């Protein structure tokens, strides 16, 4: 049975709150974020029979509430349908207090001070990638740039060779974008196999990388991590760090290609970059993860039962007109650009500073090296929804 097949509606779900919605549908007509925003025309919280049947929260306030309240909305299951992960991926699939131990273990690698060295690498890699295409006057941004940039940073973080890049990208693609439970599970299994061999090498010859550090780390008052925890955490770093940054780079580039005035503004005012990136991320949030209800509860008068799944599409949080005036407009001067782009609460993305750094560095270098650019005439960019929204095809041209 396809994961997108219709499941029975549980008895506690009122018929008025049922809406057939498939957040993993492969093709969306028109603009992807217009497609997400149209859900605001219906019930604020609704239930879809797709992917095992799950709730969908559509407003920023409720999405933030579910993400923060782990005692009711647990991360033990964080995608639909339930049971996709064969092993849990710590720390994101653990709740506090165990989650906190894992988070502390990883934290030293993601502080602003630690990221300083990676910023240098990000800049070098950006320049190298951009210089490859600048003189051509055209590129397919996804395959030539946005997929290559974050994997280069990830390989540095885990000290793995660039020759493994394509293999790892393929695993990450399946883990995050697998269209079926089986395909997603296969991506995880392939990652576990790959990482198992890497951990075995690092046991013999530990380095200063994050994987070696995890091998020597302890949780729960002093026990080492189990093999399953190590593999799950490694797979998470791979899936979390690659697809998400690549996706965000794609959406930001798509916006800039359609808005030459914003290209000019940023090219002539590089100091605006941090706030521009923040606003572009607010407008193009990508993560569509889920939570497992572990206690019967009520959200805005909607009864949810233990065992229900709740999708929290941050894609919609940034488009909420109750939270942001004129939400579809990208305004670098917007007073309040704070968003849920990296989640909220204890599970907020540990790589947020690294991701912001990659984005700021890449777009600063791009605008220095490439003149005004646009979408290639006669070709259509492709953006798709998913566990993380993504741009899968983005042809650009400029004059040389």
């Amino acid at each position, binding site marked *: 049975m396809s994961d997108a097949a219709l499941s029975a509606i549980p008895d506690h779900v009122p018929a008025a709150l049922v809406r057939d919605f498939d957040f993993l549908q492969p093709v969306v007509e028109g603009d992807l974020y217009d497609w997400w925003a149209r859900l605001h025309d219906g019930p604020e919280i609704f239930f879809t029979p797709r992917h095992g049947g799950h709730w969908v929260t559509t407003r920023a306030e409720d999405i933030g509430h579910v993400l923060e309240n782990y005692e009711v909305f647990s991360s033990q299951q964080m995608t639909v349908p339930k049971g996709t992960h064969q092993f849990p991926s710590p720390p994101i699939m653990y709740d506090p207090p165990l989650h906190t131990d894992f988070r502390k273990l990883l*934290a030293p690698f*993601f*502080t*602003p*001070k630690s990221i300083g060295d990676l910023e240098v690498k990000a800049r070098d890699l950006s320049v190298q990638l951009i210089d490859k295409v600048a003189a051509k006057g055209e590129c397919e941004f996804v395959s030539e740039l946005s997929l290559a940039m974050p994997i280069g940073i990830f390989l540095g973080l885990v000290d793995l060779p660039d020759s493994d890049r394509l293999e790892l990208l393929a695993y990450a693609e399946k883990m995050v974008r697998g269209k079926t439970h089986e395909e997603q599970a296969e991506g995880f299994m392939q990652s576990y196999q790959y990482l198992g061999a890497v951990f075995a090498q690092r046991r013999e010859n530990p380095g200063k990388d994050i994987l070696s550090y995890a091998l020597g780390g302890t949780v729960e008052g002093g026990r080492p991590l189990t093999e399953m925890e190590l593999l799950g955490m490694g797979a998470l770093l791979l899936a979390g760090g690659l697809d998400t940054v690549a996706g965000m780079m794609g959406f930001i580039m798509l916006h800039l290609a359609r808005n030459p005035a914003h290209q000019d503004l940023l090219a002539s005012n590089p100091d605006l970059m941090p706030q521009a990136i*923040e606003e572009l991320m607010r407008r193009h949030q990508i993560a569509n993860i889920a939570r497992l209800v572990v206690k019967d509860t009520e959200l805005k008068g909607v009864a949810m039962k233990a065992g229900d799944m709740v999708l929290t599409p941050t894609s919609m949080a940034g488009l909420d007109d109750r939270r942001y005036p004129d939400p579809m407009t990208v305004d670098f001067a917007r007073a309040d650009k*704070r*968003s*849920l782009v*990296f989640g*909220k*609460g*204890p599970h*907020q*993305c540990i790589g*947020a*500073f690294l991701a*912001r750094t990659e984005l700021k560095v890449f777009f600063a270098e791009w605008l220095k090296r490439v003149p005004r650019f646009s979408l290639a005439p006669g070709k259509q960019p492709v953006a798709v929804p998913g566990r993380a929204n993504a741009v899968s095809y983005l042809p650009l041209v400029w004059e040389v």
Partner: protein
Amino acid sequence: MRWICLACGHVYDEDEGDPDHGIQPGTRFADLPADWDCPFCGSDRQHFAEEDDA
């Protein structure tokens, strides 16, 4: 003392407070209200660390 947001790098300086959000200069980080979030990115207080350590 200065505290840095681990998610975006914004610095909360206790000497300066956060007057735009009603926090007076001299307010210690530990005394910030529970609902105070990073004024730049919205991260909550648990994602801040003393600047020298981060």
